[in-house]
């Protein structure tokens, strides 16, 4: 090689030949240019290949459909119909060969030319007449002789008349001819139309195939106007080009194709692409045109495509609702987020306001035994396993200080107790248990592991609270806690004492001997106050004895999802992967895992498991800065603002009816909705029921507690219901005072038992199913309980009275519903 160079050096410059080198270089340049063009047009644009593939796929499918359509066309019945029509068409067309038709068409032609000629003549005559008229008038005005002109004028006018008449005749004749011809032709047109309809499918598929073949390969993009924020407070549009490759996403028939042509799930029908785009729900770079960059799998991209198990994160950006079935993990996470009181310590800008989840502590000294406070703070779950209060892992000293502070700041101090354990008579246990059962306390409270969970467990309640407090509480709960859900039972003092005795007999542990005169120092109180503020007790409990301290003690979570992984502190933990999800899962299950000697962690232990932590992860990582424009956001529906008025309202507050019942959209779901109770039940039965509630369904154990209401109170309730809580659809005073005939009752019975088989769900005299309430039994009778109008309307169409009922809509006529009603009322 070097030798060649050295030899070349010996040749004088003028004689050296550069031809070969030039040729090589030029060839190289040509090759690289072509390479550049191919690279630019094809290699760098893989979406072109995808579109081609998709078009072929769609073409194949269309061809298959076309074959099917052709086959149906070839089937016997279609073919026979087709040939019949063709035959008719042929005979109709043959009729056209008729002489008469020919003559008509010929005459029409002649008439047309005749009309044209006449029109021309008329026009010329008109023009000439105008000219003469001018001359005539000019002569007159010049006072010259004008007879000749007048003569000409008259002559021309006469001509005009004649021609107009002829023209009118000719046009009339033409009309008649046309009508006659149409008669011939009309039938042919309709036959032809029928023929095309038979081939309609084939034609449309052929057209579709043409359309597919003539499609051009191009970028498909959607522009979402004003979707994002820029940095200056304005809105900018978002461009999405996902459809360039994902062409089958909204086309039926592509469900089983492989990506990127697979059809999207039903959720796409709910969120059409033209309006919502793809990236607001899935993440990724909408503007990119290669798979890797469009899916955001490039270094540094902040919002890559969401993978398996994480796709619910972004639903929450528009759906503010707590429960929606398409995102179960998000719904779970949100419920947990709100019910665990996370918002008490962590701020999330724009999140729905949630009230404090802990009970007020402002009179705690009066309520609770000091020894119990200690036990509770040190380990809440040891007293109440289902509590929401987390474990702060405090030292004994810290718990003591906090206790001192709470007792000191309490507004009501303990007084010498009137009721002590010693003062309770053991003979009262049995009676207390009876009263307890009659009052159905376990509808809400847990005793012995059985019962409701919306109220505290009562097993060890006498070790927790001062007995005086318990007495006052049962007597009138609102006096201690105005927003409590506990109703005020009308017990006598003796009854309450018996209940307390019974409760005392249930206890399974003893904390310590009753400690009256419990003492604490001011130093402990001061330290306790600092601890209370530092550990954020005010995040769940209302302020105790001091002003609410501004600011929340936990980190702000508003943009938690945007936090880069570098900003997550993993402490000294090395055995988890360095991802946000791993951090969140670890943190929630063991909040103080990332503490080091220099950096403390204050978050307490909630006892979350892996499932809850995953749900939280979905919620938390959805807190990003991106937010859709206002019209897209579905705000949470506010709870109904119904407040029962007047005397009725006072009773409802006192008895806390809305804890279990719902009226007009507000209340609980443990008991029936009372919004239409006035139309639903008979006043007499209601009176009986409220005085002494019974179990209403065969499968149910629960029943309404006995409140020992006075007659006056019951009347207030009944009056309000009958006048206000009514449903217009139910006819009032229906069938009252009517007598039913035997044939009607018999017909009703037949309908009930044989035609509609109502006994599959309802019982009459213990025969029948147990899905629905029993209609007639020894202690319950639908005639007494329900109004006749309600029964009638209900049987006719239950969903008009209760959209969520399980009773099917059987489409009964008025007649049938009336007969069944009469049958039921005959018992």
């Amino acid at each position, binding site marked *: 090689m070097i030798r060649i160079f050295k030899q070349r050096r010996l040749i004088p410059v003028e004689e050296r030949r550069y031809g070969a080198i030039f040729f090589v*270089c*030029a060839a190289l340049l040509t090759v*690289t*240019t072509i390479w550049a063009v191919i690279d630019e047009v094809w290699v760098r644009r893989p979406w072109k290949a995808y579109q081609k593939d998709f078009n072929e796929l769609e073409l194949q499918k269309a061809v298959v459909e076309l074959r099917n359509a052709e086959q149906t066309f070839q089937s016997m019945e279609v073919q026979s119909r087709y040939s019949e029509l063709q035959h008719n068409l042929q005979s109709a067309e043959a009729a056209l060969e008729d002489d008469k038709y020919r003559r008509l068409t010929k005459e029409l032609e002649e008439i047309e030319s005749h009309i044209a000629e006449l029109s021309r003549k008329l026009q010329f005559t008109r023009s000439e007449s105008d000219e003469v008229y001018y001359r005539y008038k000019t002569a007159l005005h010049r006072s010259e002789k004008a007879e000749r002109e007048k003569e000409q004028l008259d002559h021309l006018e006469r001509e005009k008349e004649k021609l107009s008449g002829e023209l009118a005749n000719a046009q009339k004749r033409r009309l008649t001819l046309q009508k006659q011809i149409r008669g011939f032709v009309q039938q042919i047109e309709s036959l032809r139309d029928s023929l095309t309809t038979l081939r309609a499918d084939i034609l449309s598929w052929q057209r579709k195939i043409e359309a597919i073949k003539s499609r051009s390969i191009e970028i498909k993009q959607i522009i979402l106007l004003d979707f994002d924020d820029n940095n200056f407070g304005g809105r900018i549009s978002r461009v999405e080009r996902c459809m360039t490759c994902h062409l089958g996403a909204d086309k039926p028939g592509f469900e089983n194709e492989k990506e990127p042509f697979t059809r999207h799930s039903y959720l796409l029908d709910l969120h059409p692409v033209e309006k919502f785009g793809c990236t607001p729900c899935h993440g990724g770079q909408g503007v990119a045109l290669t798979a890797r960059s469009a899916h955001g799998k490039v270094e540094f991209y902040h919002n890559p495509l969401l993978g398996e198990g994480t796709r619910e994160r972004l639903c929450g950006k528009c759906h503010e609702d707590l429960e929606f079935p398409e995102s179960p993990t998000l719904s779970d996470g949100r419920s947990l987020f709100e019910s665990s009181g996370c918002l008490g310590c962590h701020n999330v800008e724009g999140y729905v306001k949630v009230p404090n989840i802990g009970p007020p502590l402002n009179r705690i000294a009066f309520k609770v035994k000091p020894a119990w406070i200690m036990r509770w703070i040190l380990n809440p779950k040891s007293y109440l396993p289902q509590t929401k209060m987390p474990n702060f892992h405090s030292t004994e000293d810290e718990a003591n200080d906090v206790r001192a502070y709470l007792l000191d700041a309490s507004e009501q101090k303990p007084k010498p107790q009137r009721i002590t354990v010693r003062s309770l008579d053991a003979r009262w246990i049995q009676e207390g248990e009876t009263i307890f059962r009659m009052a159905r306390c376990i509808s809400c409270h847990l005793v012995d592991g059985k019962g409701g969970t919306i109220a505290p467990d009562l097993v060890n309640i006498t070790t927790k609270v001062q007995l005086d407090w318990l007495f006052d509480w049962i007597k009138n709960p609102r006096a201690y806690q105005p927003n409590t859900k506990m109703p005020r039972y009308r017990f006598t003092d003796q009854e309450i004492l018996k209940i307390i005795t019974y409760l005392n007999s249930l206890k399974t542990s003893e904390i310590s001997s009753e400690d009256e005169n419990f003492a604490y120092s001011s130093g402990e109180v001061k330290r306790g106050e600092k601890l209370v503020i530092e550990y954020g007790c005010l995040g769940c409990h209302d302020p105790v004895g001091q002003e609410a301290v501004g600011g929340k003690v936990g980190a702000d979570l508003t943009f938690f999802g945007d936090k880069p992984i570098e900003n997550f502190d993993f402490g000294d933990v090395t055995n988890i992967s360095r991802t946000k999800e791993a951090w969140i899962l670890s943190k929630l299950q063991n909040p103080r895992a990332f503490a080091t000697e220099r950096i403390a962690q204050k978050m307490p232990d909630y006892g979350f498991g892996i499932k809850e932590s995953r749900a939280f992860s979905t919620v938390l990582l959805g807190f990003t800065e991106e937010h859709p424009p206002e019209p897209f956001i579905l705000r949470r529906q506010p709870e109904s603002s119904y407040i029962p008025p007047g005397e009725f309202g006072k009773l409802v507050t006192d008895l806390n009816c809305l804890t279990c019942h719902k009226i007009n959209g507000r209340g609980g779901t443990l008991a029936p909705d009372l919004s239409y109770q006035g139309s639903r039940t008979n006043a007499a039965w209601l009176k009986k029921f409220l005085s002494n509630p019974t179990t209403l369904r065969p499968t149910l154990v629960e029943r309404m507690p006995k409140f020992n209401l006075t007659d006056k109170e019951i009347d207030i309730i009944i009056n309000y219901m009958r006048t206000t809580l009514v449903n217009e659809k139910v006819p009032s005073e229906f069938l009252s005072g009517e007598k039913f005939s035997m044939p009607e009752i018999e017909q009703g019975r037949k309908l009930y038992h044989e035609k509609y088989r109502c006994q599959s769900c309802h019982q009459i005299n213990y025969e029948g199913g147990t899905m629905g309430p029993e209609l007639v039994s020894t202690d319950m009778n639908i005639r007494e309980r329900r109004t006749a109008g309600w029964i009638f309307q209900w049987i006719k169409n239950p969903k008009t009275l209760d959209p969520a009922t399980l009773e099917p809509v059987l489409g009964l006529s008025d007649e049938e519903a009336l007969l069944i009603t009469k049958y039921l009322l005959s018992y």
Partner: protein
Amino acid sequence: MEQFFHILTLPDNIPIAGMLLLVLFYYWLGMSQAVKNDKYGVNRNIDKVHCWPYLTRIEFLATLLIMVILTVWSITIDAPLEELASPSKTPNPAKAPWYFLGLQEMLVYFDPWIAGVILPGLIIVGLMIIPYIDTNPRGGGYYSFHQRKFAIIVFGFGYMLWVVLIIIGTFFRGPGWYFFYPWEAWDVHRIVALTNVDLPYLFGIRSYFWSSVFGGILVSGYYFLGVIFYFYLKKKHPEFMKKFGIIRYSIVVFLLLTMLALPIKMFLRIALNIKYVWVTPWFNI
């Protein structure tokens, strides 16, 4: 070495690496010619050829070749896209483009006024006045080392210094602008204690005023060496110095001493942990 290769093959560093090789090649080319010319002598009346077509056709070839190289380069290597700019995330290390990395590296040894304004200014001014201070009539139009010793050595040294600074800035500086050997992985959490003191402090001077005075004396003494050398040169080569003139000489010696100050300062800083030699309220050297 992973870090080293990663930096070397970054799309925006590939041209520098290529250019470095080219610079070495051209230097070798020139010097080999110079050696040959020095050995066999240079004949000013050698054969001449016309530029057109004998030079232009070679240039045209070169154009073709460069176009081919550029086309292939642009097809195969895409320009890099780095992270989304975010005011809350500062890249670490935040490095200047390669042509300014030399200056950024100089910032370690001098304060911003000197390293960013004075020295670059002097570089530019120095380059501009080369025609006026270079009075050597020999060595024009052909490569020669013996006939242009001073110019080649000084310029070569300066150029090499610049390139070395760039190389250090590219490959040897990591997060926090700490020194990382090329085989060390870059650790953003690394902390190295920096315990540099000013030179006067080392000599026991604690007051600011006397530190200033000390530094001033030192720096003027350094430049005074140039003055002394003038008189020495005048005695050794009187005719040359008469032709050269005192103005030219002052400029040359000033620039040369300033250029040499950089490696001296680098040594003081790296070996002796000295921060500044001369502290004043307006600038520090």
